[in-house]
């Protein structure tokens, strides 16, 4: 197994040290060198770029971080898998694999699940056609290039044709204070396959008791083959000192379906690009986004639902509740290609402001090049209704309980769409724990 033993910084010497430490096929080494060259050519994103003008990263300093060595710290069990019978489990700490398990009945059927950096050597023929091919563009910005050059460990889920994995798989990514994690996730479902992957990320507690910091620069690629069905859940609960950047893309082929649930609760600042491409007729995708922010957190999600084939359906619903001085930015785009007739596209973003100083920006957009489509979008932002609080208090609830009920009710619409009970419970509990009382 490949292990990063020394802390490796994000500079020329660090890149060479990483390359020396990795066991990898030559084509992958080439891919990394190409990405590192792009990193050195590209400027940092700036406030002058439309996509970054609401997301201030001037305080981010890459030199403060290095790839960690995974240490020996204890790691938590994870919340998404509580009470769930799993078919596989993968735990990484600072990008170093600590647990990698897959039930034998699935490995016998050809399912692959484990650290990507290890499996890429054993199954290059499975991985090479997909890795950073159609679902990842290392040239899109400097963070994407850095990730493509430095990614380590990560996870692979491969499900062969017509294999239905009926129990979820679980990955837990833990980050220690001040460390960096550049994990890459690759999910490949061949035609007719089915699987559920529960992925969560968290920070390890800071021994000094402070807010855990760090740098997470991730990439997610999902290929859902014809007639395949994937449920993917991603819960981000990183420490409130962590800078998070991510490029995530799924391709859904003919008659396939993807249900993608996002829980974004942690980090100091997150800038995530989430892209779903419906590439074959009859493909469907449903995205459920739950965001809760507090303190000075800033979460910025940029979603793109691209209809590249006819008769496809996409349905994105993001809901955010914000307290204190936190801020969310949601930019959603439905893009319909010229031939994608009979498209049914929907996107919505609702925001609930729990304090005077929180701020939510919603920027929905449509770009339609076909003439027989139905695309709808909408967004709302509002404060907690004082009359509802009064009503609840008149029935014996405290103000805090009343607000918790209002917040739960606000998220109910999206919780109702999430078909995995442990995910609904984990999100509901994490949010109600965070809600504070406001006058």
């Amino acid at each position: 197994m490949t292990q990063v033993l020394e802390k490796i910084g994000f500079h020329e010497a660090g890149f060479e040290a990483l390359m020396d430490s990795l066991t990898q096929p030559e084509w992958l080494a080439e891919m990394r060198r190409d990405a590192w060259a792009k990193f050195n050519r590209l400027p940092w994103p700036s406030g002058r770029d439309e996509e970054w003008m609401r997301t201030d990263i001037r305080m981010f300093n890459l030199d403060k971080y290095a790839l960690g060595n995974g240490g020996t710290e204890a790691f938590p069990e994870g919340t998404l898998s509580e009470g769930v019978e799993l078919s596989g489990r993968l735990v990484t700490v600072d990008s170093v694999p600590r647990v990698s398990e897959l039930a034998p009945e699935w490995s016998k059927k050809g399912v692959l699940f484990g650290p990507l950096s290890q499996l890429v050597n054993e199954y290059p023929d499975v991985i090479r056609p997909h890795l950073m091919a159609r679902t990842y563009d290392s040239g899109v910005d400097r963070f994407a290039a850095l990730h493509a050059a430095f990614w380590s460990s990560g996870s692979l889920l491969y499900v062969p044709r017509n294999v239905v994995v009926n129990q979820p798989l679980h990955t837990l990514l833990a980050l220690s204070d001040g460390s960096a994690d550049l994990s890459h996730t690759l999910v490949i479902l061949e035609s007719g396959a089915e699987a559920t992957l529960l992925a969560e990320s968290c920070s390890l507690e800071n021994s000094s008791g402070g807010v855990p910091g760090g740098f997470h620069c991730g990439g997610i690629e999902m290929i859902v083959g014809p007639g395949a069905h994937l449920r993917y859940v991603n819960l981000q609960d990183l420490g409130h000192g962590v800078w998070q950047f991510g490029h995530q893309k799924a391709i859904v082929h003919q008659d396939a379906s993807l249900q993608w649930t996002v829980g974004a609760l942690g980090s100091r600042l997150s800038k995530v690009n989430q892209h779903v491409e419906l590439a074959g007729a009859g493909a469907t995708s449903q995205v459920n986004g739950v965001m809760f922010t507090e303190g000075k957190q800033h979460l910025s999600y940029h979603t793109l639902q691209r209809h590249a084939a006819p008769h496809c359906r996409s349905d994105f619903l993001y809901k955010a509740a914000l307290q204190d001085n936190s801020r969310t930015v949601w930019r959603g785009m439905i893009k319909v290609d010229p031939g994608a007739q009979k498209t049914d596209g929907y996107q919505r973003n609702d925001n609930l402001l729990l304090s005077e100083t929180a701020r939510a920006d919603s920027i929905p957009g449509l770009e339609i090049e076909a003439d027989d489509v139905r695309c709808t979008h909408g967004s709302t932002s509002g404060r907690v209704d004082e009359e509802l609080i009064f009503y609840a208090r008149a029935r014996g609830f405290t103000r805090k309980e009343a607000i918790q009920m209002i917040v739960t009710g606000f998220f109910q619409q999206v919780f109702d769409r999430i078909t995995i009970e442990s995910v609904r419970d984990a999100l509901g509990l994490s949010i109600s724990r965070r809600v504070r009382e406001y006058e």
Partner: protein
Amino acid sequence: MGNSCGSYQRNNQRPKRMSEFIFAINEADLADGGKSLVEVEDRLVLIFRIGEQFFCIDDVCTHDGGTLADGNHEGYEVECPRHGARFDIRTGAALCMPAFKPTQVHECQVTEGKVFVKLS
């Protein structure tokens, strides 16, 4: 090319404090009529000097989060370069559309040639 995403004065190698006032910049480093972008305790703030007076506000335009550091300023007013909102550097008040909420102000104190800031 550096690996920091912004260029501003970092004061973290000088962790001097006067109670809750935190060192921001040397008085001599800021000319009369000038402004400087400074990192104070994980926060980017703008310090202005007018004569012997110093003022400090968040480097945030409340219209759409624009940075005021690149905007023009005259007298006690600074203008956001994105859509032209103006703020009073003494009170943080928004003086014209499209901003209508004040930006945060922070108290400044000058002692022995050093400007200290108390974050609000």
